[in-house]
């Protein structure tokens, strides 16, 4: 029989409860499950000596209990066995349903006691903690049993909050990503409209300028100084015309040439045109045609240009040699939006593109190559793909190394 208790025992009990109420300070809303689990284990040790403590979490999709962590890790197998046996005899679901801590004889560890703490909040079952202790079950006190319940409840609250927060964070992130994609597309589209108008306005006066310059040159004849100046004017006017018509070329005609193109042959052609440069850079190119992939919407010449400019970028990113891999695959069942598309993935092992540059890479006149390039290659690729009704995305290669360009092109026989 327990001795009569003085006020100290109650004081202790209250102190313990107070300590557990600090759970939320030790593990906040932004802590991951791992941290919360750590705090829980520490608090648990204060209540009783445990041989094993395991956390099972409910998988939100399958609604099954999955082992999250075991302390000590070496007991993993025994722990899973214990759970299986408790589930088999129906005890586990009974405890979860009752939502209160329960103590039972262990099925795996003879002569030991198993403690099950369901982790649940008012509306949700998050998981359960399974604990095995050497403690004789008859020596478990009222205090222990109450404290276990309080601890489980505190832990559940914090864990639910953390999970909700994490869920919200992910949702927010994907929204942000979608939003920045929309902004990017909108930006490129307005640049396209602007260039279409501007190039027209530039080319007309330019024609007049270079026409008169030619006339003047004929008139001046000889090797005089003014004639040299006129040559400069004609040359530079020619450069302006080249840049502007470069833009014009991809301004995107409103009437799409409803051609269907064999993607295999487009890529093979592009490879054959860049083979020499690849060999020179010691880059190994790898592509195997996929028979029966179907035809895609788009002009073959345009698409060859798209592939070539991406290959060229990759080659430049691998001055010391490397691998370039082109894969095509049909998109199956990836949501309604991606149905009826072919995915082209061009992956290199080059220096990669930093995250902040990736966003701008599709913009016209954006180049990291200095004066060597006009920065129109990828913009052109973007315009062509966009016109075909596809998308182009620049990401990093496997293991965050290199670059992976993904192009989605609609199939020509796509219905609807």
């Amino acid at each position: 029989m327990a001795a009569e208790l003085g006020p100290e025992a109650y004081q202790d009990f209250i102190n313990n409860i107070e300590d557990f109420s600090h759970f939320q300070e030790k593990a906040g809303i932004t802590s991951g499950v791992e941290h919360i689990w750590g705090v829980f284990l520490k608090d648990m040790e204060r209540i009783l000596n445990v041989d094993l403590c395991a956390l099972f979490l409910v998988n939100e999709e399958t609604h099954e209990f999955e082992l999250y962590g075991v302390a000590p890790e070496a007991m993993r197998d025994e722990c899973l066995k214990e759970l299986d046996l408790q589930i088999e005899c129906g005890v586990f679901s009974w405890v979860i349903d009752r939502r209160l801590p329960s103590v039972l004889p262990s099925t795996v560890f003879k002569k030991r006691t198993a403690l099950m703490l369901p982790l649940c909040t008012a509306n949700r079952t998050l998981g359960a903690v399974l604990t095995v202790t050497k403690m004789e079950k008859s020596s478990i006190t009222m205090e222990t049993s109450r404290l276990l319940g309080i601890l489980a409840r505190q832990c559940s609250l914090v864990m639910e909050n953390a999970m909700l927060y994490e869920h919200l964070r992910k949702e927010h992130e994907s929204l942000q990503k979608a939003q920045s994609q929309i902004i990017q597309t909108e930006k490129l589209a307005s640049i396209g409209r602007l260039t279409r108008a501007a190039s027209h306005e530039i080319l007309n006066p330019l024609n007049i300028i270079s026409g008169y310059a030619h006339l003047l040159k004929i008139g001046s004849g000889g090797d005089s100084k003014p004639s040299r100046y006129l040559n400069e004017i004609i040359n530079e006017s020619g450069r302006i015309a080249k840049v502007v018509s470069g833009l014009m070329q991809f301004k995107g005609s409103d009437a799409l040439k409803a051609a269907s193109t064999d993607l295999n042959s487009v890529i093979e052609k592009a490879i054959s045109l860049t083979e020499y440069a690849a060999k020179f850079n010691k880059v190994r190119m790898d592509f195997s045609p996929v028979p029966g992939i179907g035809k895609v919407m788009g002009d073959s010449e345009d698409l060859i240009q798209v592939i070539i400019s991406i290959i060229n970028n990759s080659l430049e990113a691998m001055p010391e040699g490397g691998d370039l891999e082109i894969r095509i695959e049909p998109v199956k069942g990836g949501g309604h939006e991606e149905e009826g598309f072919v995915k082209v993935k061009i992956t290199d092992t080059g220096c990669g593109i930093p995250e902040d540059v990736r966003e701008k890479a599709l913009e016209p006149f954006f180049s990291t190559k200095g004066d060597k390039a006009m920065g129109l290659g990828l913009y052109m690729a973007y315009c062509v793909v966009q016109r075909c009704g596809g998308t182009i995305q620049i990401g990093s290669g496997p293991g965050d190394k290199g670059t992976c360009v993904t192009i989605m092109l609609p199939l020509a026989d796509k219905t609807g």
Partner: protein
Amino acid sequence: MTGVDISQLIGRVDDLPTLPQTFLRITQIVNNPRASAKDLSSVIGDDQVLTARLLRLVNSSFYGFPQKVSTVTGAIVLLGFDAIRSLLLSSSVFEIFPGRRRKNHKGLSALWDHALGCAVGAKVIGSRLRYDNIEELFVAGLLHDIGKIVEMVYLPDAFSKIQALVKEKDLLILDAEQEVLGFSHAEVGTLLATEWKLPQKLVRIIEMHHLPQEAANFSRETSLVHFSDILCRALDIGSGGDPWVPPLNDFAWNAVGLDQGGLPYVMTEMTRVYRDMRHVINSGR
């Protein structure tokens, strides 16, 4: 007024049934945070009848535990200390009132059936609402009309008059009590519960089970018992002493907060568990 008043009843408090000594010891232990399962089980174990009754309850459909619980210690650690105390209190109150076995006391038997039905109802609703301490709700349901039982056993003449009045004037028993005794069974029940040193929550529930909105801290539990009381009458489980289904208190319905599909579930489950529990309780006699 027929010469009986509540002070007279208080005067006879010494004659009122008392809870068994064992139960008082158990309350003492449960109130001690350092008491172990062993301490509690040794006290219960001393009382063979209590042990048998407890294990029968634990293994009944009240819990539906998938395995057999064969030891008192096992039951304590599985269900927790509070639950055990409530279960013991439940099984004790059935024993302490005489007359349940008397065949001619049909009214008393019906009252007990009503109490059990209300207890089961409170437990079933509590489980549905994921209430933590369903054993306590069970006891509360069981004891809510204990005052009527006291009246029937200790003031049999007055109680006959009350019942006659109910029939004659189509009164609710509550109103008939006022007319005959000047006090109600809720007051008598409160008196007894206080005398028994039951937890404050139980005392309040007994006192306020007709006025749940005034039960302050315990208004949700009181509402739940009030609601279960009315459900029992609607389902015709036992008899509360009058043939009427008293009006359901609006406040109680809102405080209970049962969901749409909850009511049909509760009514079916209540009938099923009640049948089983009645068997469990009666087989122990």
